């Protein structure tokens, strides 16, 4: 099996923003520095794709992969939640969970909106564990769907529930200041979760003598097992600090199915916003910035945002201006000859955005700049890239 670093599935929107590409960027860069294979996971099913033709979804995925190639983030393997092998295995995974008594049907009162984006169990309405909370809003004590703007209505029906209790075998967090938050999330994740849905999208499952429609988030949550099936051994996962819950959930569900799933390191990135400094001028999409400036200045901007010691970062596009000036003097950059594979901890230190800011500044001011192996990658220097 190939040890790998991965990211949780990304939903690919029609326009790829820099913030969305940051996670695959970290996956790719850390993979290059550590020698782990890079796996970029994507969601190609779910609400965001509702009404789209299969071909259009597929084209969108193709464009995303081309964009990653254009910016120079090599990815070993793209895992998609609509991968036929994964979909085929879903039935088996659910049967395993049902046989172990962890997946059970029972009658419950659920709250559902008109468009079907929100569907929660009434008893868990105030729990922030449901993935639906990202599209739900409480207005004057009443729950609403943010998408269709309708108040949720009650229905009593037969539902499929997953028993959680995800504690034990904790994820290891880098930076360490996220460890407590992850531990707390793992320990508190101990209530039955609704995994069946009434809405028409999502995969069907035959279980307990009836057909269920599965929640799309539940379907991708077995991704660690799915990767093992594909001969990858998950060693590390890159997540934004806003995605710790989905990580704990996916790791927890996967461990129920693969008890020997090894301990995984979570590389938790800050929440990075890329801005121009002028609210009237949006920064533009990744493709637009690439077309305008080429890939090196855009990579330096993205890399600058990755300040591991912070939880929130605002990276201003003015850095591109300095990166253009600095990159134009790249003859003064002396590539690193270091060929070592680094530990995850060391690789994280190397990829720190403060170091990138210093690099850009030094390129403008100095006559000779010694590059780190990471800076080699960013500037495409060194023996492998020359």
């Amino acid at each position: 099996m190939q040890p790998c670093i991965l990211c949780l599935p990304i939903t690919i929107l029609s326009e790829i923003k820099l913030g969305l590409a940051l996670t695959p960027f970290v996956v790719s860069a850390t993979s290059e520095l550590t020698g782990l294979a890079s796996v970029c996971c994507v969601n190609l099913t779910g609400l965001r794709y509702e009404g789209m033709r299969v071909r259009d979804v597929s084209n969108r995925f193709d464009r995303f992969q081309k964009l990653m190639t254009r910016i120079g983030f090599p990815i070993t393997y793209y895992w998609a939640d609509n991968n036929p092998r994964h979909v085929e295995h879903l039935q088996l995974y659910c049967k395993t969970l049902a046989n172990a008594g962890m997946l059970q049907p029972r009658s419950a009162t659920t709250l559902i909106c008109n468009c079907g984006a929100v569907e929660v169990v009434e008893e868990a309405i105030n729990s922030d564990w449901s993935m639906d909370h990202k599209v739900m809003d409480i207005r004057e004590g009443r729950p609403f769907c943010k998408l269709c703007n309708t108040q949720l209505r009650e229905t009593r029906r037969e539902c499929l529930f997953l028993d959680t209790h995800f504690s034990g075998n904790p994820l290891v967090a880098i930076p360490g200041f996220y460890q407590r938050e992850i531990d707390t999330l793992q320990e508190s994740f101990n209530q039955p979760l609704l995994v069946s849905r009434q809405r028409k999208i999502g995969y069907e499952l035959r279980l307990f003598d009836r057909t269920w429609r599965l929640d799309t988030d539940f379907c991708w949550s077995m991704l660690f097992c799915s990767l093992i099936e594909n001969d990858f051994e998950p060693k590390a996962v890159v997540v934004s600090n806003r995605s710790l819950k989905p990580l704990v959930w996916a790791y927890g569900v996967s461990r129920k199915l693969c008890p020997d799933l090894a301990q995984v390191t979570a590389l938790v990135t800050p929440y990075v916003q890329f801005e121009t400094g002028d609210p009237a001028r949006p920064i533009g999409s990744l493709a637009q910035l690439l077309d305008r400036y080429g890939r090196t200045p855009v990579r330096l901007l993205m890399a600058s945002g990755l300040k591991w010691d912070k939880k929130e970062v605002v990276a201003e596009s003015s850095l591109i201006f300095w990166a253009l000036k600095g990159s134009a003097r790249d003859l003064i950059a002396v590539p690193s000859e270091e060929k070592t594979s680094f530990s995850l901890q060391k690789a994280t230190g190397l990829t720190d955005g403060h170091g990138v800011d210093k690099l850009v500044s030094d390129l403008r001011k100095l006559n000779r700049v010694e590059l780190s192996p990471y800076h080699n990658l960013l500037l495409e220097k060194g023996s492998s890239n020359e």
Partner: protein
Amino acid sequence: MNKRKIRNLGEKIVAIFGAENVECILFHGSILFNPQTPPQDADFVIVLRRKKEDDCSELRRLVTHSRIVQVPIHLHLIYLEELPVNADFFSIHTCGAFFACHLRQAETIYGENIFDKLVGPSDYQLQLSLLQKVQQYTLQLRNLVFKPGKVSEGELLWAKKKSIVMLKDLLLSSDIIIQEEARIIRESMDRFPQFSAEERIFLEKLSRPWMSPRSEVKRRHFMSRCLWVHERAYEIMRTRIASTEKCRFFS
């Protein structure tokens, strides 16, 4: 011209020069972005790693004997060693540094688009190269408008096409890169209030399917309207450049 034919041409080029010698083959221009709009020609950029004496002759033979495409082919041959890392120093044909941005939007039919690896251009060179292009097109069109004799169909189409290119360049000078003609016109009208009501009516006409003006009077009228668009775009760019760059114009 369909994608298969374009790929075939790419394969022929790779077969002639050898895969190890071809850095990339890019397909760009009107057929790629505006396949319904005449006049059409197939624009290619070929980047080779090594120079050989008869490269140009080989390409001439290919274009002469090629029955792969029915439209005129424009090939630009560039050697890797001629490409500056800094896009400020890049130009192709009569287009300056800004053209690196256009070529990044090209379809890569072989290899990896080398123009993604170029850095920039800087804002200064982008504005300067676009201004020079806009000056060139405006003066060319003025020559056509006062040229004696009848206006040919080719001249009408050229004027129409360049009017939209002027808008495209104007948008690029605001960091907006759009290739599809109808969108270029829409976006320009939204972004630049300087276009007069009459000019806007004419711009809307330009976005409709081509109907050649029948009488010579109408043809002359069309050419004058195109010149309006050119001059307005030039004026907008001049005003902007005068306020942001180290450039002053007589007034």
